[in-house]
């Protein structure tokens, strides 16, 4: 593992990028050199709250993916495994994306040789609809006037069309039930170190991206992009490395506090009685990949008189199948029409599994998925 500061040598990319445009330039290198068939990255559709995974095959189109989008809690694991399996792709990944991809690689659903993971450090994401409401309630600005947003120094910062900025402490927003999604608040994986490179502005000088190079493939990317004249690099000062480590440490400490909070037992939670058996949680889960032969589709689980299903019959099956590999992406919470905090119990069980075995889904090196490991039986 090594560190480098990088910025784009292309003015348009440098100006459009969040911190120097290094990520966009590295993606451009991969496309221009035909190392990959395409790039999967976020691009805003209607506004800054509406970033959607976009598959880019021409490097001229990469500019529309520049910038960071905290109000876009997407997941790309499913897309890569279902639709891009046979393609060579570069994918920008938050830590939970990276963890999902890693779990799917372990299950042979994604070919590791075909994928470049360009990691993006992540302090958390905000749901777009509640994010707009949050800006309406806690900021002077009109949500429609926001052109970009970022999370920095414990604040959620918005930039308006006139260039002005407003910032509110994340802690204050979260106290009021806004701010980052619940799973992001408890997430303690802030730097995607299983990605080939992990990029961000933590510890970086203005106009530069701080990159952690995690493996040989990552080093080749940096060297190649530099040789192609697309990025300029320099070594970070020790202070920058320390500063980045400090930010990560604070973020993890905040997450641990949330993890330590006590939650009611499932049997004490009213939310489960709202379940309508729509399977949205299962269908969106990037780890639940055996959807075509799912046990829950078997006739004995299809009794309409069991709506709502008992949590142990419905979620119990899913818990036993994949909770050990839960990457805490929170997609199940996001898509539940009844606002059931599904990810809470999955993440809790993953944490219990971690306490017993040390296995962190999508982070730990393990030759087999935990589903097949002896520890699962013991647990």
């Amino acid at each position, binding site marked *: 593992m090594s560190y480098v500061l990088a910025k784009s040598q292309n003015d348009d990319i440098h100006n459009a990028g969040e911190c120097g445009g290094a990520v966009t330039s590295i993606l451009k290198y991969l496309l221009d050199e035909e190392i990959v068939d*395409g790039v*999967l990255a976020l691009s805003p*559709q*209607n*506004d800054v*709250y*509406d970033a*959607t*995974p*976009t*598959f880019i*095959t021409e490097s001229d189109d990469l500019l529309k993916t520049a910038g960071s989008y905290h109000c*876009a*809690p*997407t997941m790309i694991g499913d*897309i890569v495994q*279902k*639709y*891009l399996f046979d393609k060579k792709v570069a994918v920008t990944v938050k830590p939970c994306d990276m963890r999902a991809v890693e779990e799917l690689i372990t299950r042979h659903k994604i070919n590791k040789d075909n994928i470049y993971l360009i990691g993006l450090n992540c302090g958390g994401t905000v*749901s*777009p*609809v*509640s994010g707009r409401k949050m800006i309406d309630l806690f900021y002077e600005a009109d949500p429609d006037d926001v052109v970009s947003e970022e999370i920095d120094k414990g604040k959620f910062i918005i930039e308006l069309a006139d260039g002005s900025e407003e910032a509110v402490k994340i802690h204050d927003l979260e106290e009021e039930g806004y701010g980052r999604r619940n799973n992001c608040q408890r997430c303690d994986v802030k730097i995607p170190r299983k990605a080939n490179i992990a990029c961000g502005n933590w510890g970086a000088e203005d106009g530069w991206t701080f990159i952690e190079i995690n493996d040989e493939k990552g080093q080749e990317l940096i060297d190649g992009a530099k040789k192609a004249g697309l990025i300029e690099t320099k070594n970070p000062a020790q202070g920058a490395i320390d500063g980045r480590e400090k930010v990560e440490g604070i973020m993890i400490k905040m997450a641990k506090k949330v993890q330590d909070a006590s939650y009611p037992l499932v049997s004490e939670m*009213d939310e489960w*009685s*709202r379940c*309508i058996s*729509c*399977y*949205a949680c299962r*269908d*969106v889960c990037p780890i639940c990949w055996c959807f075509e032969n799912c046990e829950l589709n078997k006739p004995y689980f299809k009794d*309409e*008189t069991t*709506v*709502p299903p008992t949590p142990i019959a419905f979620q119990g099956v899913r818990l036993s199948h994949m909770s050990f590999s839960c990457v805490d992406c929170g*997609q199940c919470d*996001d*898509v*539940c*029409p*009844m*606002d059931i905090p599904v990810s809470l119990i999955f993440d809790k069980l993953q944490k219990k599994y971690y306490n017993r075995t040390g296995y962190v889904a999508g982070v730990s090196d393990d030759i087999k998925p935990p589903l097949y490991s002896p520890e699962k039986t013991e647990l």
Partner: protein
Amino acid sequence: MLEIKHTLCPSCSVGCGLNVIINNGEIVGTFPYKRHPVNAGKNCLNGRNSIDCYQNKFEKAFVSKSEVDVEKAIEEVSKELNSADSSDVTLICSGSNDIEEIKAIKEFGESKNYNIAFYADNLKDFADVASYDEVAGADKVFVIGDLLYENPLIGRRIVHAKQNGAKIYALGKTENSVTFNIADETSNSSVQEFLDNNKGNIDDSSVIVFNYVDSQDDLDKIEALNCKCLPVFSKSNSKGTLGIMEAKSSDEMIELLENTKVLLVFNDDIAAELDFDFARISKIISFAPCSNKTTEISDIVVPIKTWLEKDGSFVNAMGETQMFAAAVESDVLSEIEIIEKLNG
């Protein structure tokens, strides 16, 4: 080429956003549309399965169950219409048609003096309906129908009302109503009895949300109450269609069908909705994107574009007009193009 595009869910009148995944020009899946203000990326099973219609769309037209070219089928439709007395011909519009299509069907029917009918779940239009935020902010919510199960993204607003301290009164057809699980008071009575029993509780801080009634009298009763209401229809544009023409009750529909010899059904599944012996009608002609109970009993079936293949607009249950754009290109004729051909 892989793309993700925004569209609207066509499964009921709530008006949820839906993203569709397109791979090499074909719709292959759905993806949460989290920016959409109605549902924030949450879709029920019907919504996520709504693309089945595109994936199983008709490739050919049918005349007497035999595959034919679309042009030939339209020719057959023209022949049937030309040989029939206009008073024997009935056009059925649907809440699945978009606004422009409804206008075109209506204009076509009126110009030919055909009967025009529209069925909206035995419900009707209300001038001033509650918004979804008003449901969530109500002090008391009276729920007629299993809204949590059948229209979950309205059901979610009822859950929010409950979380905000509202009292929930639920009426269901069965004991297993999911809505009962969050209700303070439940009932399996008739709608009339439910309204009568709660007359003293209903005031201007209340909202009545419903997706069925037992009779037209129930609708009048709801309209006379001193509170806002929100009828939730089973089709995406029933509210928009009601802005263009009045809906008929099930009794009125059956009376009309009894006097119909040639029935043209525009993107509807009326056979699944009405208890009527459709064999009594000499010719049934369906314009539909994919198979349903009505196309199964139709003499002529003409394929039409799905909503994913055209631009249009729906009006959702709370009266908001929502535009959508074609997600994929298609050579299939739209209903408007078919009507133009029928007009010669």
